[in-house]
């Protein structure tokens, strides 16, 4: 006769109110690094940029605090033809963008530490055509992140084409979210 052993822990079908409450309590806890989201995101950006420095063999000293480098309007702006020599490595939008960020971090003014996120306001035309300027707007936030104001460039084109904007936003988010893609893709 087959021996049948029921081990409650393996069944796992208890759905008592207590268990539900315990589950909720366990899910409520958040790691401290994520409670300070701004600090975490700045860390992420530094990791992205330090990665670029490594890949392009720039002097890492510029990247000790990359958040400090941005022009006085808090805007990165570039022309394809003006980007650093590394640009011709690829035509992928995110690499172009990152290269432009690198250039402006190094050459331009200081970016406020409260910079929270990045949004592209470019158009498909300016993205595709080499002689158009592409601007990126940094959205500022106060410390709590509840009050924001967008600083837009006068050069931002009003006739934004959604697909182009989305493409650049996508690429930028990818680069900021996951440094992995900087070397694994677009090579």
């Amino acid at each position, binding site marked *: 006769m087959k021996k049948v052993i029921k081990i409650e822990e393996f069944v796992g079908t208890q759905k008592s109110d207590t268990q539900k409450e315990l589950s909720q309590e366990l899910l409520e806890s958040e*790691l401290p690094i994520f409670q300070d989201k701004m600090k975490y995101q700045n860390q992420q950006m530094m990791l992205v940029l330090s990665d670029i420095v490594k890949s392009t063999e720039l002097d890492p000293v510029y990247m000790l605090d990359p958040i400090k480098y941005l022009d006085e309007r808090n805007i990165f702006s570039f022309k394809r033809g003006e980007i650093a020599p590394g640009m011709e490595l690829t035509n992928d939008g995110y690499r172009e963008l990152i290269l432009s960020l690198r250039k402006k971090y190094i050459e331009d003014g200081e970016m406020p530490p409260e910079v929270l996120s990045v949004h592209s306001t470019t158009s498909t035309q300016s993205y595709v055509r080499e002689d158009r300027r592409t601007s990126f707007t940094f959205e500022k936030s106060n410390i709590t992140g509840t009050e924001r104001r967008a600083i837009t460039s006068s050069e931002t084109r009003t006739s934004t084409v959604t697909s182009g904007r989305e493409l650049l936003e996508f690429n930028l988010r990818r680069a*900021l979210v996951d440094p992995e893609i900087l070397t694994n893709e677009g090579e």
Partner: protein
Amino acid sequence: MKGLTFILTDKCNITCDFCAPNCGPKIKGALSAETMIRVYDEMSSLMPVANVVFTGGEPTLYINDVVKVIQHIKKDGVSSRIVTNAYWGKTEKLARRFLTKLKNAGLYEFNFSVDDFHQKYISYEAIKRATELALEYEFPVLLAHKTYPDSESDISTFEALLDRTIPIYEDLTPDEKDKHKLCFSSGNTIPVGRGIDTIDVNKWVPSNLPRSYWEGPCDEVLRNITVQSDGSVSPCCGLVDRGLGVFYYGSVYEKSIPQLISKANSSTLYNWLALEGPEGLMNAILEKSTNEKFHGTYLQNCQLCQEIFSSEQKMKILIDCIPEKVNDLSAKRMNHEVHRSLYKSKTKPNIYMTATCQ
């Protein structure tokens, strides 16, 4: 992001004697194509999605919805996979209709669920026909087999059925995996779900299993998102018992994917599982309470998770452990991010999600 999985229905045309998610013909409900497309769009706007998996239940019962989603994601070049019991292989006409539809939609590959439990209801002849025709349509096919102590089928069963040698997927290098259109993979059946009462767990999970079966960080948590048929979202492969509320942190009908990802990614519990695995949780519980009992050996780490989160006492102890653990986990996560950034070309990244979504 490793993958997005849609358990698009719990409905299945068969009722296997043993089934972790308790699927069957009488169960109703499924994710609509519109919902799956919205979830994919929200997720891919945040990060690259490596592949999309459709499973269940039997996902091909809703083939028109699956086709719509595959057509949609194809534009991004995202790989797609259907996990099916291949019942549609019962006639050539039906199989060709399915395969033509899916080929035209842009499906990349199939996993066929094959084992004693499935083959009680799905004939070997249907598996043979489905496999041969899928290969004819140039779909890669993985025969995903589950074994258990009294299992009658193994790789030789299917090699004889198909009259060919079938390479074992886990033994192949990435290049070799691309070359072989047909592979075989066999794993242990985890004693969870329907049928648990009919087995001898101690026989299924012998006490002499090596620790490598279940120790170390979980490879799934925070690398996958699984959307269940009712819209609830899991942070891993989603094959845990549906009764464990700790693995469901929201619904796609109530929150956006960025909100859900942000919540999962910052969760102490999920980071703990991703960084140390359920083994880390067990060690913390044992440090806090030496009297707490564990089975001790597991077929895989999911089973240990199952043991921990179906015990109210263990969950209570974990809650007590968290305040002492959060700083350590924060440091580990940050170190992990730095490590990933600096050495990504040499090592496999361990965590893909980040909290940059607002």
